[in-house]
């Protein structure tokens, strides 16, 4: 009994010491988020998301250059856009996705780079202009200097190639989840070229537009925080027939276009 008590006290002391250290950092992190939120959203207040918005990511990422993130919302019909901010990345705004009439914001998945232990914030902008946020802490580091996979000349020749995979079967009245993969190194300018020992110049996706039979599904704005070979999973409303068309633009002003016939399922 006595032994148990001592162990408990030791545990309590350790936790308190940990909390004291975290507290200092917490204040700095809160101040940074405050600044960032102001820069991104102006004076508009951010409300606690509560059940409205959820953000999933591994607590400790295995690969900081490829961290899967899922944002999901409670009332997709109310949502205009979703923004993902990785507070401590040098370019913190990882992605902003604006949904069109046939886009379904219920679940959005992205893969990102994380440079150091950081908070991540997901912000829902509703159609009537309100902002709701949720956040989580992710332990990962070094994602920005990690190489973009094995991008050699051969891989670069495939730049802009796309694959589309439907993750669910079509069901009347329900949105269908699709995963889009775009072959692109998304060089962020912080990666070393092994041959020259210089830095590989940045080249990254800036926008992705997805439309269904001419109607907008979504528009994505992004830059260097998306992982190499960007993968985006999103919902499409009424994907019964026709074509899903993708247009991606990168920082070299290259335009990549591909369309997927829904009749054939478009699975890749």
């Amino acid at each position, binding site marked *: 009994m006595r032994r148990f008590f001592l162990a*408990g006290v030791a*545990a*309590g002391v*350790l*936790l308190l*010491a*940990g909390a004291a*250290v975290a507290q*200092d950092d917490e204040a700095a992190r809160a101040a*940074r988020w405050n*600044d*960032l939120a102001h*820069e*991104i959203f102006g004076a508009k207040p951010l409300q606690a998301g509560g059940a409205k918005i959820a953000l999933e990511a591994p607590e400790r990422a295995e690969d*900081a*250059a490829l961290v899967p993130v899922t944002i999901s919302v409670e009332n997709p019909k109310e949502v205009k856009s979703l923004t993902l901010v990785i507070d*401590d990345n*040098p*370019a*913190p*705004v990882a992605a902003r996705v604006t949904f069109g009439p046939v886009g379904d914001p219920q679940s959005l998945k992205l893969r990102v780079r994380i*440079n*150091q*232990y950081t908070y991540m914030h997901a912000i829902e902008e509703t159609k009537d202009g309100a902002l709701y946020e949720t956040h989580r802490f992710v332990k990962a*580091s*070094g*994602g*920005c*200097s*990690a*190489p973009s996979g094995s991008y050699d000349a051969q891989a670069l020749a495939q730049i802009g190639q796309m694959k589309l995979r439907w993750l669910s079967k079509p069901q009347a009245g329900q949105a269908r989840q699709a995963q889009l993969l775009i072959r692109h190194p998304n060089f*962020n*300018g*912080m*990666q*070393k070229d*092994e041959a020259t*020992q210089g*830095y590989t*110049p*940045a*080249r*990254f996706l*800036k926008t992705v537009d997805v439309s269904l039979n001419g109607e907008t599904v979504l528009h994505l704005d992004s*830059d*260097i925080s998306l992982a190499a070979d960007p993968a985006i999973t999103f919902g499409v409303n009424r994907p019964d027939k026709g074509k899903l068309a993708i247009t991606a633009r990168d*920082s*070299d002003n290259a335009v990549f276009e591909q369309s997927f016939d829904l009749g054939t399922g478009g699975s890749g």
Partner: protein
Amino acid sequence: MSSRTVPFSRGLAAAAFAVFAITAAAEVPEPQSYWMGPMHGEVPAALSGARVLHAPELAVLLAQGQAVLIDAAAAPRRPDNLAPEAIWKPVPHRDIAGSIWLPDLGAGQLTPDQDSFYRARLMALTANDLDRPIVFYCHPQCWASWNAAKRAIGYGYRRVAWYPDGAEGWQDAGHKLVAAAPEVPPQAGH
């Protein structure tokens, strides 16, 4: 009490896992020369000619007050083609108190200018004493400090130590980090 014991035991499980992860990573062989690949990735468990430290040993060494502590972490670089309106806001770099931050010292290859700058900088920091202990670190899974420590051995330092757990490891061990400013060779602006 129970609300405290539960997270604590989870913490223990996490620590046990972390030890396992470090052991598993020990299979990376030491390169013959400097590591020329990407700076982020699995690193060897050892560095020939250097002592490998973890937080408790580092704390003891720093308390003795003799060691020169070098942070070899790279500094972030804004891409030229980032949209002008994009927010670029690198976090103020934080490292172990008392460190000198020498970004690029851990590059696979230095220009002659960089090499003479860093050699002179280390000479000044150690007061020309090749027996002064020097500790190099950056981040976990970061080759920059491995290269930097190897470089120092090449410069003739006899008491080189490598702290592979990096600033994050120091923080995880319950220590504070402090804001740091980089020292780079003159006109080395990227």
